[in-house]
């Protein structure tokens, strides 16, 4: 177990920055998910931590020891880091037991001790008795378990997961998710978990680092990401947040302030110290929207009604903002039809802080 620190890490390839000035501190035993759309630099980040890539600038420390930085780069084999790859990366020419025992063999561990450790690791991932099989004869879920066991057997100080569930079907994903969570609880290992699946990240992680275009967009707990996104990217990326232009009317008071959105005034949550300003944005969730035929609110047009079983997803364009699309769910019985006029009310929202403001 060890603390992992990334300190202003930048990685440039020939003509672009894959990772730009990223600083993250992962506490001992923490489960950190790195979340982002494809091409955001999250896999490069993992490869930097593992030592397969060298930092262009900045520093990476594992357990207090600088492994990447100005002074050079510690080779991957010397970092005591375990990795679980998306495609499992099991060696086809070895049996399951040989795969798992590889790091022990490399470390020249006593054969009997190694055999016992391999058996323990197999038991830990519920694969007792499959040690003599070939990886090719295993199912996808079993292969992923072997990969997990292989990385655990060496008791690494830090385990990196590179989209480990991306190749599994939905059903298997849920059960492997449980298994990862249980494993983390049991071993208390520090984990960095790369994924593009928000639900996965939310379910597993203590904290989530959202990446966008090589930069760290926000580093926060899942709850905070959802309720208090630090910028527009995070707001719209997490759970399809709705961004609406707003003018801040009053200064913050007890975590709230008054704003004007689409011609109506409402009170939203905000960071301490917010002052009145124009051209701000608020983020609201579909659950924050409500149909209010007679009450306060704003009028608009129902663009589309997509029935999804038990409820319908409604896409709505306000008259005051013809370029905006608001979406929300209406449970059965669905009354709105596409092309109909309707009046919506925003119950709550979050004021996106000024770019660059400290959190």
């Amino acid at each position, binding site marked *: 177990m060890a603390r992992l620190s990334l300190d202003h890490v930048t990685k440039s390839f020939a003509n672009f920055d894959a990772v730009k000035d990223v600083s993250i501190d992962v506490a001992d035993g923490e489960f950190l998910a790195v979340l982002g759309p494809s091409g955001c630099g999250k896999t490069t980040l993992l490869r930097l931590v*593992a030592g397969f890539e060298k930092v262009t600038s900045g520093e990476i420390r594992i357990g207090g020891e600088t492994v990447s930085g100005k002074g050079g780069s510690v080779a991957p084999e010397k*970092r005591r880091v375990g990795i679980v790859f998306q*495609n499992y990366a099991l060696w086809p020419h070895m049996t399951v037991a040989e795969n798992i025992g590889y790091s022990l063999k490399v*470390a020249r561990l006593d054969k009997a001790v190694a055999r016992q450790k391999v058996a323990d690791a197999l038991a830990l991932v519920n694969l007792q008795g499959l040690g003599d099989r070939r990886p090719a004869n295993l199912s996808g879920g079993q292969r992923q378990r072997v990969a997990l066991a292989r990385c655990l057997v060496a008791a690494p100080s830090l385990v990196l997961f590179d989209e480990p569930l991306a190749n599994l079907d939905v059903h298997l994903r849920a059960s492997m998710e449980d298994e990862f969570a249980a494993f983390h609880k049991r071993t208390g290992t520090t984990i960095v978990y790369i994924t593009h699946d928000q639900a996965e990240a939310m379910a597993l992680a203590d904290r989530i680092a959202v990446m966008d275009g090589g930069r760290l967009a926000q580093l926060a707990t899942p709850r905070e990401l959802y309720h208090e996104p630090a910028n527009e990217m995070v707001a719209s990326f997490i759970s399809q947040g709705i961004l609406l232009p707003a003018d801040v009317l009053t200064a913050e008071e007890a975590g709230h302030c008054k704003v004007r959105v689409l011609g109506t005034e409402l009170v939203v949550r905000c960071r301490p110290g917010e002052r009145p300003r124009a051209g701000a944005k608020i983020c609201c969730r579909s659950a924050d929207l409500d149909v209010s035929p007679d009450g306060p609110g704003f009028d608009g047009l129902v663009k589309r009604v997509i029935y999804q079983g038990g409820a319908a997803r409604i896409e709505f364009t306000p008259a005051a903002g013809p370029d905006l699309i608001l979406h929300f769910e209406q449970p059965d019985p669905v009354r709105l039809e596409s092309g109909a006029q309707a009046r919506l009310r925003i119950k709550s929202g979050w004021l996106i802080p000024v770019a660059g403001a400290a959190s």
Partner: protein
Amino acid sequence: MSTSTRESRGQEMALTAAVAVVIVLLSLLPMLRLIKEIVAPGGTLSTVAIKAGLASPATWIATWHTLVAGIGGTILAVLSGTLVAVLITLTDIRGHSALVLCYVMPLMIAPQVTALAWLQLSGPASPFLKLFGAAPPLGTKNPLYSTSGIILLLGVQYGPLVFLLVRAGLRKLPRELVEAARAAGAGWFTVLVTIVLPLMTPSIMAAAALAFVSCVGNFGIPAFLGIPANYLVLPTLIYQRLAGGGPAVLGETAFLSVLIGAIAMAGIFAQEVMSRRRDYRISSTSLPAEPYELGRWRPAVQAGMWLLIVLVLFLPLFGLVLTSLVPGYGIALNARTATLDNYRFVLFEHGAASRAFFNSFWLSIAAAFFAVLVAVPIGYLIAWGKQRWVRLLNLSVELPYALPGVVLAIASLLLFLRPIPLTGIQLYNTVWIILYAYLARFLVLALRPTISGYHQIDRALEEAAQVAGAGLFMRMRTIIFPLVAPAAIAGGLLIFMTALSELTVSALLWSSGSETIGVVMFSFEQGGDSNYAAAMSVITVAVTFVLMLVTNLLAPYLPIGVLPWRD
């Protein structure tokens, strides 16, 4: 409607039938004729031919020599080819394309030219050694006239073959398999030994089998190095028997050629067995691993690489050029003695030599042209055909090339010794029998690139033309041929380069008036006129080199791997 179905059916049938005829004529017929000669000489089943062959001690000695040279050459080729492939593919060594081009070059040079070039580097008459005054006294035996000389040159000749196959395998190795091992604490050398090389077993085994078949069937190197030392392998034994006994000993040589074929097949069979012992299938695809940083070793490794290339390519070619400029055997080369007379002699004065240039050029062009034309429809049936039996087609086209050239040469002799029935046309003792053998042997060289060309083309392009109403022949001409033409033509150029200085087949099939470059080169060397042989070699190497450059112009339109020397 039914007439148009019948028409398109008819075209497909016609194409299939034409392809079948070509393949029966070129691949199956000679092989069947050869087998018939062994099991039923003179038309009745008997074991006389086999017994006679087995009883001869020369057979056993030559078989033993073939195995020694074949296995020795294979081991050397596998070791050197794999080492070079690992260094070039997995490390951050610089100048990849130049290294690949230079290392693969010996593969494009005919074996007898390689042999001749190396002979010019050593031995008492070596103009190269004489430059430094280091030549041994006249009468000393050239050290290359020996078993180890043959093994060395076979290794040099076919190391590139191993290199190409192993490199192709290494490039497909997903980086995660390497990285998982490194994360498990293994250093680069451990990863190489425990992960990379085991996973490369199928590539290395396939390469070894190919190298073995090539070594066993090689004629040029044991002919130039072994015959003077009276070290006969099966191909040279067949040559000597046939040269001494003529058609009368054909039955006996047929047995010997089947013996070579059997040894070659045993090599391929051994590879199959070895590759199946474990599961080496790599299921995932990914980027190749980051190159290993050689760090402070890089200059040394790089220098070692270039030293190797100087040794196996530049020095021998240099020796060849020097010899071609020397007026006669054993004369030291200097500004006063250097002459171009040898070139003038072989090009314009010596009848057989100038005839040979003419013959080899048109034989190569004809073989290449025909192969390109035939490869397109055959490739169509193999790559896109729906019938299962079509796969067998591929195998039967590969066979004449997979088997040593001597086998095909003997089969052609047997087939055409007597005039062709019904027509009375006599191919034996004419240049046409050589053309027949070239067509059969080299067709696959154009077919392989064409098939990989087909695999790169979206079939929908053809289907779109079909929907537009184009019949099969129309589609062939207007859509398919233009699309696969670059690959097929590149294959044709490979055939031209290979056939130009070919020796194995023509050594057994030539007759007065139908000499090839390889044959005349060989007879010059046997007669002690190395300088003439060297001049001819330099010309063919130069032609090959120019053609390689020309073919490079096609490279942007070709599937990867069609041009072996392109990285």
